[in-house]
């Protein structure tokens, strides 16, 4: 553990010591992490480049940043063309928060010290380049659609669509990162197990804390195989066995995710994570979010139930193919 990281942990614990506060305990004597927590925030994942090495906002800067972010999220987003269809929605649609995180950091990423995700490895970059080329070639044919990224993507069948569109996972679970809405998590504990219900797509992570080992590497899970243990009052969760398609910021199946959960006050839960994926990233990277208690309940988000959009996307690709075939026939 680096000196910096110890410093961060201590900083996170300060309010607890200051108020002489001790976390409530569950029946097995461990701190209770139970409750409904939210991580919604306007604090960016990565530090904006113009902030350089500035890790924390001053109160004045925080005020100005908050005001600018709120206005940006609420302005009329129309810009014409495909942008209108993809992005022209204001903050009524979203629930991504209106406040900076309580730690006043300029980014969720705390390591590397520049607050930015390290570059991908040459090997991973080449892999992604190859995939991109294959898509480009395929998408010279009709039947492709504009993906959420704004790029073209094949849409012949459901399996070609991304995990988000297929309602499998939204990338908000590993690591637990805020997204556009439904940024709520419910933690429940039992002897030898902690479960985290994520409102977004209703993902539940069941984390054994009974000392059992990871599954064999031949068994792969969308959100990995988590195993927990207690280090003092901190729950440490170690996850491996990911499927490559989960892709944390370009990461691959070798992702090793380490997360730490520490109660720091009656209404705060410090969440820290480290992404260690040596085949994908040139070095590990870490982030932290002081989550806050929020009013419940968690609402159901049974995404598959009414996912008409996916059917419409495939129907749109089929309509595109039909139109191209008709045009070709007309030319003959």
């Amino acid at each position: 553990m680096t000196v910096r990281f110890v410093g961060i942990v201590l900083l996170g614990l300060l309010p607890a010591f200051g108020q002489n506060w001790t976390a409530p305990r569950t029946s097995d004597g461990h701190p209770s992490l139970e409750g409904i927590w939210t991580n919604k925030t306007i604090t960016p994942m990565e530090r904006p480049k113009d902030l350089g090495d500035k890790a924390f906002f001053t109160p004045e800067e925080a005020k100005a940043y908050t005001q600018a972010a709120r206005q940006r999220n609420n302005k009329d987003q129309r810009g014409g063309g495909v942008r209108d269809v993809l992005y022209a929605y204001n903050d009524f649609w979203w629930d991504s928060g209106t406040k900076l995180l309580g730690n006043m950091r300029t980014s969720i990423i705390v390591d590397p010290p520049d607050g930015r995700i390290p570059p991908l490895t040459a090997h991973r970059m080449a892999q992604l380049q190859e995939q991109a080329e294959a898509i480009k070639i395929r998408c010279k044919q009709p039947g492709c659609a504009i993906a959420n990224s704004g790029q073209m993507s094949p849409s012949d069948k459901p399996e070609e669509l991304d995990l988000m569109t297929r309602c499998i996972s939204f990338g908000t679970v590993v690591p637990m990162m805020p997204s556009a809405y439904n940024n709520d998590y419910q933690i429940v504990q039992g002897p030898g197990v902690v479960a985290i219900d994520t409102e977004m797509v209703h993902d539940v992570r069941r984390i054994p804390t009974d000392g059992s080992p990871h599954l064999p590497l031949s068994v792969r899970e969308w959100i990995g195989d988590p195993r927990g243990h207690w280090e003092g009052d901190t729950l440490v969760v170690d996850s491996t066995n990911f499927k490559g398609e989960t892709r944390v910021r370009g990461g691959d199946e070798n992702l090793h995710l380490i997360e730490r959960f520490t109660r720091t006050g009656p209404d705060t839960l410090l969440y820290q994570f480290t992404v260690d994926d040596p085949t994908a990233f040139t070095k590990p990277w870490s982030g932290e979010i002081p989550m806050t208690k929020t009013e419940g309940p968690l609402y159901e988000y049974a995404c598959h139930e009414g996912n008409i959009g996916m059917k419409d996307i495939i129907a749109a690709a089929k309509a595109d193919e039909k139109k191209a075939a008709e045009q070709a026939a007309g030319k003959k």
Partner: protein
Amino acid sequence: MIEMNRTVFAIACVGALWFAAPGWAHHSFAAEFDENKPVKLHGVVTKMEWINPHSWIHMDVKGDDGKVVNWAIECGSPNTLFRRGLNKNSLPEGTEINVDGYHAKDGENKANGRDVTLSDGRKLFLGANPDADK
């Protein structure tokens, strides 16, 4: 540092940029709706479906020929709309609305609800108050 081109960056970020850029729909609206076919619809609500992942407003629209056609309008996540104070009583059957959106690419009578305005000019999907803490 290795520079990423746009396409590779997009691939790297699928399912990941999501958490950094809140202005993204769950699935790509651009894959579903046609930016070259904007529609403006005026009609009355026949049903509101509070389904995940996105809610749908159904409305009857009378065409120039007097024929009534039922349209379906895709809107935001029901959980978010509910937290914003909308509920099943907010858009009762018969409510007159104007919709500004884009037509579905597969030609069905569907559109995205970019703007939904009530007959008195009030916008249904007003942005949250920028000064409010929520």
